[in-house]
């Protein structure tokens, strides 16, 4: 493995893990606040137990996300110094605001976790909501910084120099809105399905059923709504990408030849040598229609993009297919759940539905990672689209492969421990959190 590949792999790995920790930390506080609200309104102790149980999960994942985020703020420089030297002053604005949001999140979490019985109950509830809002704001800001890499703005690039820097313009670049909406909804849908899946499993196993049912309803409802909204935001994103980054769109769709009535290619095996896609289902005119709202208009193909500026086609296309496919599965499951709920058919008592939710546990996160791969790999070979190549940004320090191995080991063991801890929290539900269970230890 050469140093460049090692640096890219380490960055991908760090972000890939951080995305999971950060998204849970963004969304779980809202679930927690909903449960807390229900407790405060109804006085039902079980909701209090649920709030506490979820807050432990938030604490574990927040801490993990905080350290992996700290690490990333250094890794940007450790791995891509040439990029940061020029990009830092331009796209740094969202990062400095994110620092503020994240700081507030940490303070609010301190209040929330240690504040039971110490403060006015609605102030205490409010600190939990602040955790969620500032977490979401952090996420949006970081995505705005990433959007700048896809859609550089706020400077003039003249003879290799970065002039007339305007950090506000850089932050509100053309891609920030579509990307941050898509990412935020993805976080809700992925976390919602993951949480709902875990509680569905416990319901199927007949353990603390009432407790897990209350938890499931909150998570599944949010997940279903997010899964229904996501295709709309996806369409908005894709139109945006088509306009700004035709190479990325062409790679996503494995669209090689510029043509009118461009077909939408579903599945298939792209072959960059022969510039064709084998075994695919082609829906004529659909791509043109989706991009332009008019099937007769042409869509730029990869052939019309210089070879040195093309992203890797196969992996971008596969990732995109995985994301869209899983998105559709979650959409269907969400619709089925909401319909059953609306018809008062008691969806939680249907074993087949609970089994489907268990199977769907990881789907949101797989889709989220796939989507992130689409946007990052689809941007290659650029680190700042059209301005700086990734290969020109890497650190001159040799031996990065050892750093990659080390960080891989750290992340894998960290994730293993996080899963282990969450598992142990679930094991202890009947003792610590479920007031109705016979072996509940009342610690208050």
């Amino acid at each position, binding site marked *: 493995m050469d140093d460049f590949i090692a640096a890219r792999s380490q960055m991908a790995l760090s972000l890939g893990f951080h995305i999971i920790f950060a998204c849970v930390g963004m969304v779980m506080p809202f679930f927690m606040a909903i449960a807390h609200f229900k407790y405060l309104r109804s006085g039902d102790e079980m909701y209090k137990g649920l709030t506490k149980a979820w807050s432990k999960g938030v604490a574990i994942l927040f*801490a993990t996300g905080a350290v992996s985020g700290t690490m990333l703020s250094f890794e940007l420089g450790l791995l891509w110094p*040439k990029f940061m030297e020029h990009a*830092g*002053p331009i796209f740094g604005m969202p990062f400095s605001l994110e620092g*503020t949001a994240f700081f*507030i999140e940490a303070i609010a979490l301190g*209040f929330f976790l240690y504040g039971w019985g110490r403060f006015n109950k609605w102030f205490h509830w409010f600190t939990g909501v602040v955790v969620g809002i500032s977490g979401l704001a952090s996420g949006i800001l970081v995505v705005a910084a990433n959007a700048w890499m896809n859609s550089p703005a706020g400077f003039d690039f003249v003879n290799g120099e970065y002039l007339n820097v305007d950090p506000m313009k850089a932050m509100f670049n053309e891609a920030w809105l579509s990307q941050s909406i898509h990412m935020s909804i993805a976080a809700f849908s992925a976390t919602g399905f993951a949480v709902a899946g875990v509680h569905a499993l416990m319901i199927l196993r007949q353990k603390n059923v009432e407790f897990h049912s209350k938890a499931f309803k909150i998570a599944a409802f949010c997940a279903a709504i997010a899964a229904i909204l996501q295709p709309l935001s996806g369409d908005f994103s894709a139109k945006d990408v088509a306009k700004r980054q035709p190479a990325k769109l062409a790679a996503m769709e494995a669209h090689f030849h510029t043509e009118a009535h461009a077909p939408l290619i579903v599945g298939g095996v792209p072959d960059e040598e022969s510039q064709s896609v084998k075994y695919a289902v082609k829906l004529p005119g659909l791509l043109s229609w989706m991009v332009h709202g008019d099937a007769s208009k042409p869509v730029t193909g990869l052939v019309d993009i210089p070879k040195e500026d093309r992203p890797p086609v196969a992996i971008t296309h596969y990732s995109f297919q995985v994301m869209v496919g899983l998105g559709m599965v979650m959409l269907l499951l969400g619709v089925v759940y909401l319909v059953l709920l609306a018809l008062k058919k008691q969806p939680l008592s249907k074993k087949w539905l609970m089994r489907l939710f268990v199977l769907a546990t990881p789907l949101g996160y797989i889709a989220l990672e796939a989507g992130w791969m689409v946007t990052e790999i689809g941007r290659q070979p650029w680190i700042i689209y059209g301005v700086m190549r990734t290969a020109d940004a890497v650190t001159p*320090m040799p031996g990065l492969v050892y750093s990659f191995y080390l960080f891989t080991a750290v992340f894998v063991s960290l994730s293993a421990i996080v899963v282990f801890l969450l598992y142990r929290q679930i094991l202890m539900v009947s003792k610590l959190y479920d007031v109705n269970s016979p072996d509940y230890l009342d610690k208050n």
Partner: protein
Amino acid sequence: MLYVVIAYLWASIWLYLLLGGADFGAGIVELFSSKGNKLHTRNIMYKAIGPVWEANHMWLIIAVVILFVGFPQIYTLMSTYVHIPLAAMLLGIIARGTAFTFRNYDAIDDRWQKVYSKIFVYSSAVTPFFLGIIAGTTVSGTINPQADNFLDAYVLNWLNWFCVSVGCFTVAICGYLATIYIIGEVKEQSDKALFVRKAKFMIIAAFVFGALVFATAAYSGVPLAQWIFGHTVNVIAIVLAIASLLFMWKSLYVSSPVLLRILAGFQVTMILFAATSTHFPNIVLLHGGQALSLLEDVGSPKTIATLAWALLIGSIFILPALFYLMYSFGKENKEVIGHDA
């Protein structure tokens, strides 16, 4: 506006050293506790730092963000040539932050606690050690971008006696800050005596390593003595720090905890002041006499202005909330600490 940004940079490094340092110190003190009172020490310290520990480490992120937005050349030069200790420090931060959380949020109390605690105490010492090494590297004039071999360019600039001594000194300072902080938090006399003993141990360690820093500086050709004793303000700063320390040594038992904290904070502030004022506006000294300057190696004026506004506005949100957090739990701790739950 540039001076606003520089002030924030200095303040966040200062607060990280004080608050984050005391936090690292908690682990360091635990590391050097005898087997008999390790658990007791840990319980007292957890109650004192629990609610605010996460906030203490945010100052590092603020400092890094200020560096890469406002002073990109400084950030990229450091992260290129001081890559290895930075990575080591990061591993320490990851291990420590997660181990602390894991040991408090593991629902089942079993032998895993021992694993988390081991990781926590060792990484609490490793992280400030590498922070010290990095700080030492910035002033030792050993970073050499022209070096043509791996060892000179990426290793020997930080792996030398001077930087290692600064690392050890930083560890001792952190332990010292933690013990002084805890003295004010404990209720029972026996606990107070315990932490006074620990504080004295840390003061001696800080003195020994401080002397070592000067000795190794002379050995490695870093004109440290000249920098400190050649400037009147630095001499005053160091004299004040040592005088207040001697006063404290005498009165660790009887002084009010607030006074002790103010004095300890004052001493560390003076050390940081002396270390940074000498070269201002230079912040990183390079091999061959060149340096990176906070006034010259700066991002565009518009970036600096926006960054300054972001920091000022951010402070309006953060500082009151942070003070209220520390105040609320500080008050509570007075009532509960000292009894092992």
